[in-house]
């Protein structure tokens, strides 16, 4: 069993409310029984709920790193507040009397063990999981439908361009919504999102002029997407293998959700990686109808491993039941790291993770990966953002020889060659950070490493960057989260 601290229990909770509710149960003395197994591996108890019979909940540390939560309550939140409460009761030092493991849990443990055994056996026998059979004619049908869907989308987009944005009124929102719905029939979930995004950009902000600028850019992006998507789908339908494109993000744009097995198939998996989270934030993506937990991670295990992103999508409908990610202050040791097709900050995923304390050498390794010349970094950024379907806000770790501020209050970082980079808060980041720079300790104002997010402002023709995190020696100062 790992050392149980309230911070550890906090980290298991799906969200802040669950923490509060779990602690509340302890305070209310709702737990009518608290037990632990002889060897201390299993904590279990009964907790009074609104019904007559109390809920039976347990936390099983038979695999110390991945506790198993069980509860008889009907909550879909996982772990539920009862299981968390049980752990909080333990951390608070309440007495857990020794008792034999209840029968039902013993049998569940047995089943789990068998499953595990089977897995090991299969692995030992070297049985590769059978490759999924692809129904080629169905796939071809799907591709044809997608092509039709793109035609439909193109017609709609062109009608907007022809008529002019100024003639669009609220009734257009309805038309768009109808189209969004239709696109679902054509297997184009990616297009649905982008069309909804257009609608949000066009009607969302208060400043109409700014809305036009954003909406126009989104229209050209839709155009590029239709063009590229159509070419790709046509090529794919002619390809007898009908393979996915594992190098560009076009499949994701079309709405493909990559499965780990597919990524593995294309060799996009790496054994044994160590990741350091540099920044984190969570935002509401109204076009996706999801909350997105976004983490920026540095791959410590490889030379120039680069900065990757983790995405945790929480659809509105299920947001309450899903785990909300949080800032991660340890090094994540990941046995298998999956990388999605993409460019600078490609998406990564992993299934299992073990935390390890951050050491000074980790930050040195991170610093070693920083770009030292802004001219080159900017070149790289521009190379990416000129492509209409690329991520327009690449994130990079840059070395700063000095940090400063001009007379008119612009924050600036300068590299060793004397190239200056303007630092500014970006509208798409939920929190401003530049005004925190003067609070940096004196030592961290020069010869430091700064994680920045770039964004090009079309109206001003400026490429700006917002600082997210500052690394100096053995300290990491997170300006965002």
């Amino acid at each position, binding site marked *: 069993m790992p050392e149980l601290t309230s911070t550890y229990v906090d980290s298991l909770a799906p*969200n802040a409310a669950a923490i*509060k509710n779990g602690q509340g149960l302890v*305070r*209310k*003395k709702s*737990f*009518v*029984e608290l037990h632990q197994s002889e060897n201390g591996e299993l904590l279990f108890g009964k907790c*009074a709920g609104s019904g007559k019979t109390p809920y039976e909940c347990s936390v099983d540390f038979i695999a110390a790193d991945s506790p198993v939560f069980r509860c008889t309550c009907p909550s879909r939140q996982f772990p539920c507040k009862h299981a968390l409460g049980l752990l909080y009761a333990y951390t608070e030092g309440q007495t857990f009397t020794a008792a034999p493991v209840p029968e039902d849990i013993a049998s569940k443990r047995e089943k789990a063990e068998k499953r595990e055994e089977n897995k090991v056996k299969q692995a030992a026998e070297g049985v590769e999981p059978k490759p999924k059979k692809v129904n080629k004619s169905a796939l071809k049908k799907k591709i044809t439908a997608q092509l039709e869907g793109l035609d439909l989308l193109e017609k709609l987009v062109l009608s907007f*361009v*022809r008529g*002019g*944005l*100024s*003639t669009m009124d609220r009734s257009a929102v309805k038309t768009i919504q109808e189209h969004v719905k239709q696109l679902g029939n054509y297997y184009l979930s990616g297009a649905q999102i982008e069309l909804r995004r257009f609608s949000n950009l066009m009607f969302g902000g208060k400043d109409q002029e700014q809305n*036009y600028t954003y909406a*126009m850019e989104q229209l*050209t992006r839709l*155009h*590029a997407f239709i063009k590229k998507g159509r070419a790709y789908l046509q090529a794919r339908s002619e390809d007898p293998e009908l393979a996915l494109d594992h190098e560009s993000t076009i499949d994701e744009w079309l709405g493909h959700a990559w499965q780990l097995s597919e990524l593995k198939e294309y060799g996009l998996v790496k054994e044994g990686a160590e990741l350091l989270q540099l920044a*984190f934030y*969570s935002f509401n993506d109204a076009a996706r109808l999801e909350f997105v937990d976004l983490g920026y991670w540095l791959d410590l295990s490889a030379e120039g491993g680069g900065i990757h992103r983790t995405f945790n999508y929480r659809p509105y409908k299920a947001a309450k039941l899903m785990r*909300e990610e*949080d*800032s991660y*202050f340890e090094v994540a040791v990941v046995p298998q790291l999956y990388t999605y097709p993409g460019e600078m900050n490609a998406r990564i995923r992993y299934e299992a993770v073990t935390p390890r304390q951050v050491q000074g050498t980790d930050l040195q390794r991170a610093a070693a990966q920083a770009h030292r010349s802004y001219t080159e970094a900017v070149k790289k950024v*521009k*190379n990416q953002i*000129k492509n*209409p379907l690329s991520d327009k806000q690449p994130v990079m770790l840059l070395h700063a020889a000095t*940090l*400063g*501020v*001009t*007379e*008119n209050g*612009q*924050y*600036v970082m*300068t590299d060793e060659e004397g*190239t*200056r*980079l*303007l630092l500014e808060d970006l509208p798409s980041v939920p*929190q*401003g950070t530049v005004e*925190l720079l*003067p*609070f*940096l300790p*004196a030592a961290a*104002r020069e010869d430091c490493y700064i994680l920045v997010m770039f964004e090009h*402002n*079309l109206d001003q*023709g400026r*490429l*700006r960057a917002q600082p997210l995190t500052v690394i100096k020696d053995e300290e990491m*100062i997170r*300006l965002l*989260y």
Partner: protein
Amino acid sequence: MSTALLQELHQEYRRLYIAGSELAAGDFRLKRLLPQFQQLGERSPVFKKIGEGIAALLEPASSDGPAPGVQLQEHTLLLESVLYTQGTIAVDGTPGPLPVRNFTLHTKQPYRKLAPVLEALSTTGSGRHEIVVDAYKEGAFQDLRLLPPAVAALSDPYSELAEYAMTNILPSYGPGIAGYLLESLDLTGGRSEVRKLEVISRVGADEYLDQIFHAAGNGSEEIRAGAIKCLGGYEQYLDHLLEWSTDKKKAIREAAYTALAAGGSAQGGERLVEAFIKKKDREMVAAVLARWPVAEVSTRLAALFMEELKAAPQDNADKKLTDKVWDELLPFITALRRERSPQMDEIYSYVLQEYARFSPLGWITLIEHAAWYKENTPDNAALAELEALDKRSARFLPNYFRAAQKTMSPKELFNQFCGTFMDKLKALVGKEAKDAAQRSQLLIHTIEEQTVDIRRRNYQVEYDAAGVRQYSRDLLPSEEIAADWDPRWLDWFIKQDAVNLAGTFARPGHQGVRDYLIGKLKEPYKRRTYDYIPNIFKGLERAGVPEPERLELLMTALENNNVHTPYTFEFYLVKLMERFPASYASRLEAVVPKYRYECKQQLEYVLNSLRSAK
């Protein structure tokens, strides 16, 4: 490459998107741009391509070519891509060093802890105050990232939150915060900027006097007042403060008075007395002096007070004059509230002597204040004065009683106030009996104030998940009662049916009080019964009734109550219920449905603990 030209073209394309691509053909502003692109196109293939695009838009080739909409999309896409490669990172001006802050804060809080606080501080809606206060108590504001929102909270539309940031959160950053706040101080601003100054005056302004002085002279009226208040106690600004104290604007004068009083200089005192004498600002100065008394000023005002009292009207013939004089006298009371001196003794003795004159004028407040003053400077002379006053009007009995407490032994006290009353009571009839009953009630009330439900105590509510804190009140401890009060009081209280006091004064071995209190429990329930039930049980404990008996009485009381459900059970009762034997569970379960509100929660909580104890 000419970025400006590309930008211009982008603006023109943007215009076409807004107006509609159909209008592109023959557009004269596009036409105007075309030659430049053609010229540049001779050297650069990119410009050539862009130029061709413009030309195609201006003159749609034929009906079978791509629609103007498609063309516009194509060309804009190309233009955008080019523009994205042209973004400048240049900075206007040369960067200097970052400003230095006098304090550094860490950034160790995780997202899930920070985000709710940031949201609470940047949105509107209910429940925000609690989140912020909790976060502050947990020390979350020591995280750097919450500092700017904490400053922004000074202008929160929910003023309680703004005040909380001003009085608690921001001062907790120490003196370093002053410089930071001054940087963003808007001299034309309103309430939020004044709050900044208030924070600065709390943490100390020593290092930033120049800036504050500047604000005091140049800001909006509110700002000036706030800044002036920060300048009290700094001699170098005394002349300015004196000048501001004669300003035309009331708010400025008030601020200057405040600063002068807080500074405590001789010249400042002189100015305050002057202002007081002039009568116009008398009330304002009095309020200031009540907070920051200045010794010399008090002495001079006291002399003036006596003079004006003596000159007060002899009768109420001119009602208007009486009121006017009273309005001028009241500020003396305010300003001299904390003053104690032979001079003041004399003044208030004079007031009491002149009872017959001042009372008909309607100046009861003045007499009350005199009584209060005398009560708090107890000597034999004052006691005699209060006794005489009590004879004039029973409303001063409490003052007399409290003064007597300070000079008499417990036995003397009882004899003085009850020994005689009780004898008299038997014989009295009619009005005199009524008077005596009124005096008894006054006495009971006075003693209750000193002994019953005093000493607030906070406790964490265990039955509520949110862990709200509530408070309960305690009785004066038995030992203090035994030491300071005559034992005969208990019998007197029982006789008077003063149940709260009987409970408070109850002691072991007194059979009467035990019977009396249990008898009170058996009386039929009335709406107000619950108010004294906690004190009955506290009394029973004091009377030495064994716990099992008391628990049974409490259980029975819960069962018998059919009349009124209180909102919440007193802390003491809940603690007592927690000691219920497990066998009460079923009885308790039966009564729970009768109760509502928080009581119900409390009973359920007790019931849960009973069950788990089983």
